């Protein structure tokens, strides 16, 4: 037993070395920086150790704005994108003709560059001196006055960011869900059909439980992904996110490291640790809930 244990460690060593070097060490390092006040990465010096970094970050209006944005984004996009992906996947699964074509179409945004998609969204939503944007054109048909989605009120910007985020994460979820749906044995549906099960009941009592592990995987990764959102906001509102009130937590961390206000690695580390704590908590809650509801 003892000997075989040692052997196992040898096999694991390469992977462990990489994990320690590139995951554990940086994490611990960031954790330490977050308590070192006024750390300077060039001179590798700091003034003292304490909770000042956290105090500063938690009082920083930009950070609070970023937290608010991130939470709204998570709360809006994760449920909607997952539900939408489920509806589209079920629809895709139930058609026979052209299924592959539709699957490809729905998957296209996934292989398209985030910034390119951002450009498309700009054309759709942005007001310029020459045009109000495509969406405003449609809205005007219903007699709604043009709205500046990119540079206008907060709710409009949040709306665009949410739609954009949902649009970007949807393809991956659809891909995963369609394969999960396809792997459900057809006999379950036939059995339900013979027993006269309504479509809705079949969906809620059979389909959803059967794919519940995949569903929860998507929800958990969806939460994590949404908390780490940054590039989507940049694609829409440019790099000065604080000015646009559209910063996210990751964006704040980036700004603190390199941005206009740049060069505060200690504050960046504290913000990163706070984000880590939030994601960890949410994931744990997710896992506890999923234990109760995911079958097998």
């Amino acid at each position, binding site marked *: 037993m003892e000997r075989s244990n040692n052997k196992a460690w040898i096999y694991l060593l390469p992977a462990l070395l990489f994990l320690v070097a590139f995951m554990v060490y940086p994490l611990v390092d960031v954790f330490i920086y977050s308590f070192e006040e006024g750390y300077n990465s060039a001179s590798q010096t700091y003034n003292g150790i304490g909770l000042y970094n956290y105090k500063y970050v938690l009082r920083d209006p930009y950070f609070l704005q970023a937290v608010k944005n991130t939470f709204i984004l998570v709360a809006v996009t994760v449920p909607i994108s997952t539900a939408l992906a489920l509806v589209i996947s079920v629809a895709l699964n139930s058609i026979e003709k052209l299924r592959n074509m539709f699957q490809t179409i729905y998957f296209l945004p996934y292989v398209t560059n985030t910034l390119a998609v951002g450009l498309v969204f700009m054309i759709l939503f942005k007001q310029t001196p020459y045009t109000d944007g495509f969406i405003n054109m449609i809205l005007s048909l219903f007699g709604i006055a043009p709205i500046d989605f990119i540079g206008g009120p907060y709710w409009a910007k949040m709306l665009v960011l949410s739609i954009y985020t949902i649009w970007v994460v949807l393809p991956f979820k659809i891909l995963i869900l369609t394969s999960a749906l396809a792997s459900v044995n057809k*006999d379950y549906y036939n059995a339900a059909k013979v027993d006269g099960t309504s479509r809705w009941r079949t969906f809620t009592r059979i389909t959803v439980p059967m794919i519940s592990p995949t569903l929860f995987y998507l929800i958990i990764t969806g939460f994590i992904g949404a908390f780490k959102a940054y590039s989507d906001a940049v694609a829409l509102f440019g790099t000065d996110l604080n000015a646009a009130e559209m910063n996210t937590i990751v964006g704040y961390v980036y700004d603190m490291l390199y941005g206009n206000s740049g060069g505060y690695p200690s504050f960046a580390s504290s913000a990163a640790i706070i984000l880590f704590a939030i994601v960890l908590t949410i994931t744990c809650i997710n896992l506890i809930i999923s234990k109760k509801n995911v079958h097998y």
Partner: protein
Amino acid sequence: MKIVFEHLTKTFPGKGKKASPVTAVNDFNFEIPDGKLIGLLGPSGCGKSTALNLLCGLIKPTSGKIYFGDDDVTEIPPENRGVGFVFQNYALYPHMTVRQNIMFPLQNLKGKDKLTKEVMEEKALEAAKLVQIDGLMDRKPAEMSGGQQQRVAIARALVKMPRVLLMDEPLSNLDARLRLQTREEIRRIQNETKITTIFVTHDQDEAMSISDLIVVMKLGVIQQMGKPQEVYDDPHNLFVATFLGTPPINVFDAKVKNGQIFIGDEAVLDIKGVKDGEYTAAIRPEGFMLNENGRFTCKLDRVEVMGRDISVVSRHSASKNDTIRSIISSNNEVNENTNHVKFDIRPNKIFLFAKSEAEERVYFEEA
């Protein structure tokens, strides 16, 4: 519930561009009497599962009609046909307990058929008792053996008291011992409920042992239908003769000349009423009688003693199988020192078939 098939045909489009369509069920015309256990029997790919799915309504026929009693159910969706279906893999919902699985069909009832929870529980328990799993109501399918899962599947199919119970290869996922036990169970359950039951199998043993009637199919066409023993004793063509019986029937190239059946150079039986010519002869294993002065000589290969019976394995140049297997009572003794064995043939255990495409039976009289 009597079931009638009327010119029922199902053709599937061929897969691929140039593939020709496949006719899985070809012009079915027969009637299944009420309250019987029917075995639909045939080799893989003969269309028996398609026939079952047509009955159930999961697939629609290309042409023809199906009647349950006097009702034309051809266009009626499965849920309104009043059928119970036991799937080959049972299709038990893995996330539900046995109780929930059995109650599931009842919970689907709507409107005036809607049942209270108590009645549902009661009916579920009743069905569970019938298949003797009432002690396992709170288990999940994964926590049960294959045989128990099979029973749950039957209980779920029975709980609504269907007019017809359909089973697709009900025993194929069970091991040999459970298979014997479960087929008795199916017989018992059918006897108790009196529900017309149709099951599909490729195992002729299974079909013969419990069915009131068997229907033998080949390539979508019904070959013969009747009581198991009748079909065994009086096969209408070579396919039916070879498909039924273990060990399988022994097939020979034969000739009829001057009122005698010739296998090789030996005239093995005197007959009347058959034209001279080339035929295929088939002899059941129990159709051989050991006789030192017998008319049929084979090369002795080996003797297998199986307690009650002796199985004599021999060879003959006219045989279409590698070896000839004959079953004789163990009261007989085979001299294993010689390399020949002589038999007489029981006249009712040898069948002649035409050398045509249909290989239909040619009847003869004993001379």
